[in-house]
């Protein structure tokens, strides 16, 4: 007994080591960062700035808005500026697949060339175990030596359009697309701020001679005055009735707007103080916070607000601020704080849309960490104030649209595949009637074709293997930051899940699990091939009692994963390695460490001898889909005689038919073998009996009705001869 316990302890310890080892290797996964990393002036005291800025001897404190630090080298002629280091989360708040940002430290030289990158923290589940974390490091290292103003996208280079292509990480498309945005937008923001990148000035707005004064309500309605509200809970603070800050703002150079708000003389005075191509906006605010900031000092910048237009940001210094003494517009609300700010950069043009941005820090209530977060509201001078109306703007496609366009053919093929499977299954009665016990090809030809497509095209080519990790990721995205764009960025998984959700409720999980799951299809194909090449005598089923015990294991696995994910997504991701999908399709059997390869290969080898062992006993995704399958709308048909007849049950590969002839809809993989029997007049005992009876009695064999029986013969009494015959 003692020996057994010792052995058990050793096995447990080894298992734990195997499972936890990847966590140790994934150094940046949920890596703890100093709570003040987003706010402390001396950024480089907390993170290794020198790693991204080779040759630097010292660094400045954080400066500018968005923040960066200057890197210096000590030379013979004193300290020399050699570049800039910045933290991505100081500049953009773009979430990756997990719903959380990839915190990246970036170094850029004075020419705008990226000279160093380092991932400080990420929460990407796929990079915890499925794909080595070094792949993300390799990905961001592709930016080294590139100019921040370059057009860079994921995929092949397009020299004709001036795009440089970067290699994606297979299986982590969403992550790299988000990271590309992070790298480009962070780099451009700092490069513009320090003067490396200069924007071309846009044509300035020319205003119409509309001068009618408007009330406050009219100004708001026409969009000349807009509102930006930030609630305390958006910053991680306790909910309160009063907004954290509520700002109304508008563009004052438009004569009708400026005069309505400031009065005739006020507007004239303001305009007389502006140089050509200078722009005035007003802001009034209520709430608990101040948009000017309590720490504002003379000569400093207003660090809580800025104006953004395209990739340009415009910040304000004290000399850009004028007092706003009052609002003349009828019905203007009261306010606690006000100001007029002047944009002096000629790059800004009021003819084009711009945004007022409020910059804040969000408090993570669990860790106490603060992270940068921004809120913005777009503003565009109404068309009737612009000569010729608003200019036409062609906005670049968002990343997910680009992915859909880039992979349009594959998306089309995949959608056609999904529709084909649904159409074939919807016509299952026709196919099963065309089949019989000895010839199931009308059904199997479709099913086997779909398996091959699932394995080759869906699994290995598109890498669109649905997984329990996606369910957990969605769950967490729902909690933290749900962005449709993120899920749309992986079109195949997105479409697959829509299909799965719909078909689970219509027909049960069997259509996905039994006909389309890449791993399930591979598993059953191996079983069929094994049988075809002479291994049939070694193939076996577990006994029904053992099957009925073991089938619950997968539900246990699912509930454990769900429960663990509530406390630690990281651990849940580790445990979800019970799915061999990443090893088989995403990473490759021979690209992972041996325990994973052994596990996946072992399951596939076992599949040669037992039909779908993983699907029946271990798959947490199957369990998750089985539960709603209880309430599928349309199940398979049975006859009353099935309670004593075992013909279907004996051949049921899923072992889903019990001793009473009932089908367990949660376990059924919709192979349709029992439905072939259902209308087979030679295989289904009640039908065979009736067939023989009719043949013996010389009665016609009517077609099989929807209820699975011969359509009954109702002899009609002979009608008496009618009058017409007389």
């Amino acid at each position, binding site marked *: 007994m003692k020996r057994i316990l010792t052995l058990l302890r050793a096995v447990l310890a080894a298992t734990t080591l195997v499972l936890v080892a990847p966590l140790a290797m994934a150094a940046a996964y949920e890596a703890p960062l100093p709570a003040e990393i987003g706010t402390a002036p001396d950024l480089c005291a907390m993170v290794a700035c020198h790693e991204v800025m080779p040759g630097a001897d010292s660094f400045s404190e954080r400066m500018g808005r968005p923040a960066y630090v200057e890197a210096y080298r000590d030379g013979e002629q004193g300290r020399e500026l050699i570049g800039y280091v910045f933290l991505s989360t100081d500049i953009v708040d773009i979430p990756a697949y997990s719903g959380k940002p990839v915190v990246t430290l970036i170094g850029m030289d004075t020419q705008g060339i990226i000279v160093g990158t380092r991932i400080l923290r990420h929460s990407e589940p796929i990079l915890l175990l499925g794909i080595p974390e070094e792949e993300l490091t390799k990905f961001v290292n592709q930016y080294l030596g590139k100019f921040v103003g370059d057009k860079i996208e994921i995929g092949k280079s397009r020299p004709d359009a001036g795009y440089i292509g970067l290699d994606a990480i297979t299986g982590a498309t969403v992550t790299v697309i988000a990271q590309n945005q992070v790298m480009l937008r962070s780099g451009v923001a700092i490069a513009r701020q320090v003067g490396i990148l200069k924007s071309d000035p846009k044509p300035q707005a020319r205003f119409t001679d509309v001068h009618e004064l408007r009330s406050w309500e009219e100004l708001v309605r026409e969009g000349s005055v807009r509102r930006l509200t930030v*609630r305390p*809970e*958006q910053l*991680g*603070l*306790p*909910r309160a009735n009063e907004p954290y800050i509520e700002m109304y703002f508008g563009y004052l150079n438009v004569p009708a707007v400026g005069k309505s708000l400031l009065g005739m003389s006020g507007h004239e005075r303001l305009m007389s103080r502006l140089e050509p191509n200078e722009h005035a906006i007003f802001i009034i605010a209520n709430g608990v916070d101040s948009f000017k900031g309590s720490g504002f000092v003379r000569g400093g910048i207003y660090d809580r607000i800025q104006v953004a237009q395209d990739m340009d940001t415009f910040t304000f210094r004290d000399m850009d601020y004028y007092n706003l003494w009052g609002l003349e517009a009828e019905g203007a609300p009261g306010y606690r704080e006000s100001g007029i700010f002047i944009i002096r950069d000629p790059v800004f043009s009021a003819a084009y849309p711009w945004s007022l941005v409020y910059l804040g820090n969000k408090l993570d*209530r*669990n860790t106490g960490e603060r992270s940068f977060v921004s809120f913005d509201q777009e503003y565009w001078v109404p068309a009737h104030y612009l000569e010729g109306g608003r200019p036409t703007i062609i906005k670049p496609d968002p990343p997910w649209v680009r992915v859909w366009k880039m992979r349009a053919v594959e998306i089309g093929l995949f959608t056609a595949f999904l529709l084909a499977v649904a159409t074939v299954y919807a016509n299952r009665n026709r196919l099963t009637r065309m089949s019989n016990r000895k010839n199931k090809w009308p059904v199997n030809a479709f099913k086997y074709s779909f398996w091959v497509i699932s394995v080759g095209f869906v699994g290995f080519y598109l890498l669109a293997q649905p997984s329990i990790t996606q369910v957990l990721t969605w769950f967490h995205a*729902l*909690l*933290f930051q749900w962005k449709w764009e993120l899920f749309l960025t992986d079109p195949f998984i997105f479409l697959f899940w829509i299909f799965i959700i719909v078909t689970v409720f219509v027909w049960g999980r069997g259509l996905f699990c039994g006909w389309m799951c890449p791993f399930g299809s591979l598993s059953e194909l191996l079983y069929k091939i094994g049988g075809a090449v002479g291994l049939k005598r070694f193939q076996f089923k577990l006994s029904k009692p053992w099957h009925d015990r073991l089938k619950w294991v997968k*539900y246990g696995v699912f509930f454990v994963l769900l*429960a663990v994910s*509530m*406390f630690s997504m990281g651990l849940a991701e580790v445990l979800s390695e019970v799915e061999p999908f990443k090893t088989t399709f995403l990473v490759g059997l021979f690209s992972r460490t041996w325990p994973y390869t052994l596990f996946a290969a072992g399951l596939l080898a076992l599949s040669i001898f037992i039909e779908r062992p993983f699907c029946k006993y271990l798959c947490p995704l199957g369990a998750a889909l*089985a*539960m*709603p399958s*209880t*309430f599928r*709308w*349309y*199940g398979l*048909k*049975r*006859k*009353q005689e*099935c*309670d004593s007849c075992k013909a279907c049950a004996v051949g049921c590969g899923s072992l889903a038919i019990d001793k*009473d*002839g*009932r*089908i*367990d*809809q*949660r376990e059924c993989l919709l192979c349709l073998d029992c439905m072939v029997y259902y209308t087979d007049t030679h295989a289904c005992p009640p039908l065979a009996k009736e067939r023989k009876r009719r043949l013996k009695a010389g009665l016609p064999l009517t077609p099989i009705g929807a209820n699975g029986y011969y359509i009954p013969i109702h002899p009609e009494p002979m009608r008496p001869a009618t009058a017409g015959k007389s």
Partner: protein
Amino acid sequence: MVDPRMPTDPIEPPYAGYSLPAMVLAEIWHHLWPWCHGGFQRKRALVAAEVAVALAVTLIWVLAALGRLDAAAIIGWWFGWSVFEVMIRMQSKPYVKEGPWWGRQYRKASLMDMISYVSFKNLLIGAALFLALKSMGLLVL
């Protein structure tokens, strides 16, 4: 005799013969209220404890609305409540719907049927409440 055409034996809930509007109301009540009148009469003490737990759950939601609890606690309670509800329903309303949701076929619930029903129903209710609270700014994460 077992009817293999149904996964479990057919059953008729008390509202089986109601008109459509009354049936819809009865089903809503069925989804929201796990106890039945008969069960309440039989086991008063147990039901009192159950109600107390239900109140505790309500309190959790109120606290959540006040921003006092984080998501994990709510989900934990949701999970606990679901387990509790499964136990209650197996005694008081041990049946589930079979086939299309707009149909009127009911059958006796096995434990797994009930777990599936309660977890799925509560997931929908929980998600709807969660999103509603979050969108109204009542839930801070």
